[in-house]
């Protein structure tokens, strides 16, 4: 087993890279289209559920009086979290010059974009009067009334908006040389379309020089951005006085959690992808190994945060806080709590073993667990805290309704729908960067 990306052994050439990575775009199978159709059907079902909810009012969801936020906000946080690994891999690892990002950054960036697109839906779905969502956006009106910039929800609008824009630009910029390559490979109208998006890239050294800088700076700003976004999201809760939310540990805790879940989702997506498109030469066990290590690390941070939360509460001797966290582990929401602990703390511990890290299937299974665990984490934080607040009179319970479940399913479908389109239309691995890697290797041989 190589502890690096053994391209020589595999005897990859620049031309191979072009050919292999473009294969999905060039050839297509009926399997792909059936899968796409199925996913699309689920999206439609989700939309129907949402339409019903808008028509009837939010009552068709399972909310109760104390629990005013539930699975919608859970999913929002979950998807924003997923979105993080993409930019992390592409930006931070780029700055750290970690070569192994090369083959996974494109897919994970794509995942980021689609995850944000999914996350962005949920605040709208969750609004009581969705049709007035634009009141959260600063626009001049005859009323002289503007959004309240002191509200964390408005911070969200800006944070998520910025994050989406920057990720999109970053992703697109990285893709331009590849688009050019595809343009040159194709003929006819397709070539024209790709040509359009490749902004007439012809890879002169002058182009490369400006491009390189721009890419570098975007990486540089995306790095603080990626850390800020989930901090802002976490402040939606930390700024509240709800026992179980009001904690300073939230920002780092959430960021770690985000990377944790994000990496897991990358594996969840890459393993089937590399199998389906035969990209074993590019996404090797060595890459999986590295990703698994990151998951292991973040899992430890998350585990620490859980412990810290309980310790702080114990140490603060605040009865309501203590009651809330006791309720979390032993109250009506203990099920989700223990699922969360199992999936996020116990299961990832298996990654201590190299065997597990190196086996695609094992890593895949672990990643699935982590995804589930992280969804439950947000669910537990949001719902159980709200259900057990200050006033004993209004302690309550929550159970999601069919509408909520349909919409959640629909949202997952929506995410995969876009990702499937991506795998079909765009290079799932950055050709240019792979070739850069190969070329320089070549150079070393010569020199």
């Amino acid at each position: 087993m190589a502890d690096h990306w053994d391209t020589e052994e595999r005897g990859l050439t620049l031309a191979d890279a072009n050919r292999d990575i473009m294969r999905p775009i060039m050839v297509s199978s009926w399997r792909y289209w059936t899968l796409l159709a199925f996913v699309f059907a689920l999206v439609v079902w989700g939309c129907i559920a949402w339409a019903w909810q808008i028509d009837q009012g939010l009552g068709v969801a399972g909310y109760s009086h104390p629990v005013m936020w539930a699975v919608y906000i859970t999913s929002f946080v979950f998807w924003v979290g997923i979105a993080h690994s993409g930019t992390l891999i592409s930006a931070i690892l780029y700055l750290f010059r970690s070569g192994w990002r090369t083959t996974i950054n494109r897919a994970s960036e794509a995942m980021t974009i689609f995850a944000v697109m999914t996350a962005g839906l949920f605040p709208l779905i969750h609004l009581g009067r969705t049709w007035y969502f634009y009141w959260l956006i600063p626009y001049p009106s005859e009323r002289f009334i503007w959004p309240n910039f002191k509200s964390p929800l408005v911070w969200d609008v800006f944070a998520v908006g910025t994050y989406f824009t920057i990720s999109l630009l970053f992703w697109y910029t990285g893709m331009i040389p590849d688009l050019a390559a595809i343009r040159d490979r194709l003929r006819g109208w397709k070539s024209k379309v790709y040509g359009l998006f490749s902004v007439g890239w012809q890879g002169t050294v002058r182009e490369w020089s400006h491009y390189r800088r721009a890419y570098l700076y975007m990486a540089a700003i995306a790095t603080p951005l990626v850390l800020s976004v989930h901090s802002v999201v976490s402040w939606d809760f930390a700024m509240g006085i709800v026992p179980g939310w009001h904690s300073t540990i939230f920002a780092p805790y959430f960021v770690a959690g985000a990377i944790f879940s994000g990496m897991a989702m990358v594996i969840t997506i890459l393993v089937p992808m590399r199998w389906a498109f035969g990209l074993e030469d590019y996404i090797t066990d060595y890459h999986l190994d590295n990703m698994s290590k990151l998951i292991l690390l973040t899992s430890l941070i998350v585990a620490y945060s859980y412990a810290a939360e309980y310790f702080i509460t114990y140490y603060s001797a605040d009865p309501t806080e203590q009651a809330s966290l006791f309720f979390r582990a032993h109250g009506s929401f203990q099920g989700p709590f223990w699922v969360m602990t199992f999936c996020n703390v116990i299961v990832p511990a298996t990654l201590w073993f190299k065997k597990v890290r190196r086996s695609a299937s094992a890593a895949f299974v672990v990643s699935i667990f982590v995804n589930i665990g992280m969804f439950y984490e947000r669910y537990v934080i949001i719902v159980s805290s709200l259900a057990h607040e200050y006033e004993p009179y209004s302690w309550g319970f929550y159970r999601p309704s069919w509408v909520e479940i349909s919409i959640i399913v629909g949202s997952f479908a929506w995410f995969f729908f876009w990702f499937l389109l991506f795998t079909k239309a765009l290079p799932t691995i950055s050709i240019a960067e792979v070739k850069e890697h190969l070329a320089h290797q070549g150079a070393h041989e010569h020199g």
Partner: protein
Amino acid sequence: MRKATYTTVGSVAAVLLAVAAAWPILHGSSAAAREVPGVPGAARARRATADTGTAGAAGAAAARAAKTSGTPTPASPGWYPQPIGAPIQGHDSLSAAQVAIQLAESATQGPAQPIPFNHHFHTTNLKMSCEYCHTNSRHSEVAIMPPLATCIGCHRIVGTGLAPIDTLRAYWQRQEPVPWVRVYKIAEFVQFKHEPHLRNDLQCQTCHGPVQDMDRVYEFQSDTIPIQSLTMGWCLRCHRQKPQPTDVATEYKLVRQAAIPANPGGTEKPGLYPMAISEQYAAHRAPLDCTTCHY
């Protein structure tokens, strides 16, 4: 060398962008104007010419005249509350030609009523005051439509043989109220009260326009307020004109000071403010508070 150019270009760009972003905030009106389809004044002149052949020419002329002559400017807004005794805006100040325009267009604007009641005739010719019929306006939140008895009071004798009057009498004989068609409709979530406005010496015309020169009442759209009438911004245009006790910055300072109960016994203590200020407050501060209209 090139460095210099970049920096200059950049800073210029920065300032431009920033100002662009801030523009709507600093000039709410310009933004607001965008929300109004067309400029009412212009539209009005056009209609006048279009609809009434000869009066149209006069109308256009008058419109031009109006531009030059007494059209109030935002600096000294004509629609701003006037002291008692001042001539009702538009009543004496409007030229005959302007009145002509008014009448011409009012004949076509606004909904048809079950009885073609003529405000122009009753107020301008008969010099009747608005409150003669809309008696409630000073005592209640609603100005009320006059009870049929009020009309009959005169028209038992006056105006026999006129078709509209006969319709009116018919209603009275049937002991059936006249189903007037609503012209002004404020949103249900706005709690509007007539009485405070009249008590603060607003003229009816301030909001309802030159009703005295309307054959048929229509929803008035002021030229000087480039905002759809009966919208929040339209109200705010007056309410924001009201003298405020302090500008926001100092108000905010006051809040902070008062937060610390400095010099005990002094009047700076929270809650214990000289009533004088409070009275002034009571008189002026309220109109910008959301709860003035929304609850």
